């Protein structure tokens, strides 16, 4: 059996597409941490609620897919703002461990709420997307879409943060939250907007995941830990770092899983993560001080 064959190439390319999904997930979490300095442990549960929103709108109420997506993104953006207003804001000045615990509490609350409201059934939107075939290699259309969306989301966020007044204010407050109020920036408002954008990115991820996965109350378990690890490996709050880390991680999973057993792909990825915590604890793109 050849080591470098068409199947390996397919595994590499599928790894890149998986990286797009993971990068998209990491984007919102990184933005929120970078600006507000709070880790939303419940981030994947927001994604889960976004998936349910799209499912109900599209599959149950017959709303066309694109409007359902837009409403899903808006719903999760509102949820992000609400999460900040009700849960994060009261503990902003508390110790980081308290902030972590409170968002952890929200995680279990949202899981239980989803179970009560939506039940334990696995639901899917029943959409059969075309399969992309190229030179005897096959690719998931939904994954390609997620990859493109991740790139577009990254570019749009970059432009927003660098080319708009609001974006500049967000970046400024992430750099020095003590001095910016003296310059006339209202941090409460900026935090709320950032949370809404973070939620909106979770909503965008939800739209793309609902094309690929069944939604159920525990789906966050599949993505939450891995998203958090990618953010840590990329440097919490470093969006470019998170983006790069997502693709490194996905290649370990995909190519590692192709050469060895699938679980070994994860073992190697986690071993690399631990190693990086020793070598570059500030994240893979951090500069040595």
């Amino acid at each position, binding site marked *: 059996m050849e080591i470098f064959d068409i199947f390996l190439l397919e*595994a590499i390319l599928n790894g890149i597409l998986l990286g797009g999904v993971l990068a998209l997930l990491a984007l919102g979490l990184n933005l929120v941490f970078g600006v507000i300095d709070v880790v939303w442990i419940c981030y994947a549960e927001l994604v889960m609620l976004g998936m349910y929103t799209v499912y109900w709108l599209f599959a149950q109420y017959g709303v066309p897919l694109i409007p359902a997506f837009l409403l899903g993104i808006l719903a999760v953006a509102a949820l992000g703002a609400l999460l900040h207003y009700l849960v994060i804001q009261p503990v902003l000045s508390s110790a980081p461990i308290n902030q972590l615990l409170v968002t952890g509490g929200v995680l279990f609350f949202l899981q239980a709420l989803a179970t009560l409201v939506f039940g334990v059934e696995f639901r899917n939107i029943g959409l059969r997307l075309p399969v992309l075939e190229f030179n005897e290699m096959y*690719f*998931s259309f939904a994954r390609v879409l997620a990859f493109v969306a991740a790139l577009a989301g990254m570019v749009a966020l970059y432009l927003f943060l660098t080319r708009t007044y609001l974006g500049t204010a967000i970046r400024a407050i992430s750099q020095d939250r003590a001095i910016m109020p003296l310059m006339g920036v209202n941090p409460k408002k900026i935090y709320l907007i950032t949370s809404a954008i973070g939620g909106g990115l979770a909503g965008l991820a939800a739209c793309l995941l609902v094309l690929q*996965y069944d939604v159920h109350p525990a789906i966050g378990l*599949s993505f939450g830990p891995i998203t958090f690890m990618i953010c840590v490996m990329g440097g919490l709050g470093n969006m470019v770092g998170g983006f790069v880390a997502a693709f490194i991680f996905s290649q370990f999973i995909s190519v590692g899983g192709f050469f060895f057993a*699938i679980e070994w792909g994860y073992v190697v990825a986690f071993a690399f993560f631990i190693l990086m915590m020793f070598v570059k604890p500030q994240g893979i793109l951090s500069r040595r001080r």
Partner: protein
Amino acid sequence: MTLFQRLSGACAGVFAAAFLLAVPAQADIKIGVIFDYTGPFAAGGSQAAAIGTKSAIDIINERGGVEGHKIIATYADAQSKSEVAINEMTRLLEQEKVDLIMGVFSSAHCVPMAQRVDQLQRFMWANVCVASSVFKDKNLKYVFRSQVHSDQFGEASCVFANENAKSRLGKEPKDLRIAIIYEDGPYGAGVASGNEATCKELGLNIVLKEGYAATSPDLSSLVTKLKRARPDVILHTGYNPDITLFLRQARELGLKWDALIGHGAGYGQIDKLRETFGKDADFIYNVDPVAAQLLDPKTLAAGLGDVTAEMVKRYKAETNAQEVPPHTSMGFNQTWIFLTDVLPRAIKKHGGFNPEALRKAALETDIPVGGTIQGYGVKFFGPGTPMAGQNERSSPVVMQYVDGATKVVWPAAIKTVDPTLPLPKGHTYAK
């Protein structure tokens, strides 16, 4: 009637009433029932099994209980987490003071629970979990299971493939390419090890054997490896959502096969598979203890057909489902066996329902084939044997989904249709 006779009669009546009031009511039998009512296992079959279990208990109570004892069931949610299952079991035994533990869907819960119960010398009646490792070489004394075990699942699919290799696939068994994929918990690993042992014994060509985590967010590299290995038959053991993820990614990445044989859990949920994959779910095989309603009641002991009909009626009333999954039969059947055979004997012959009495009664169980709603008989391997506590008469069947309906295709003695093998041309997964 003289006045004396009337007075005597009245006095006798008064004494009888007084006697009845003076004698304490029969003690209730408290059973702790543990299933996954939430989390991914709930929709993967646990809830269906829990409904079956509850129906059996309700019917027995409506008939007056067991030997005059009412069954008081306390239902606990394991939340699809092993540590929660163990905590709930401890709570039920120590705080709720239940007389025994029953239920359990996931083998990942079952393995540690069984050992803990046995250490405590309390009694456990396992309903649904299938891993052979629950009993294998453990010499458990107080844990019993009349359900099929995973080695038998693994064996059935390989024997089925072997029997059909030449006649339907036109290949000698040694040329039949088999891939074994499984979730890597005790359930999947147990079935896969049974697959491997039997397929090797039969001389089938195993081209790939690989496990994965049931919560894995991506199985594309597994699918790519399968494409490279070019199996004719894929033997898959998984829960949900990994099964739907596999089927979806297999379609997207162009994986083809002649036969996909699942082994219970997510593959037992034809309604769900059909809802998700439509006609693509047709011709998938599932190895499981048979769903009782698929059996001809004439082949079973008298009265069991009515029991099955009642189970089906109650399940449909509760869920509005069209198909009753095998898990409902598993939950119902094991509970029925315990409440109608083991428990009455423990009370009548061994003086009650303490763990020792229940253990002795279980070891004396001797139900012939055809004596349960799922067809198989019950007799437990005795103490000191490698599978002590496991039913030695249990057996699974191979079913196939055809146009949304479930058909039995193996063993030949009870099959309802011939298998459609290989997949018909034009099917999404057909070669």
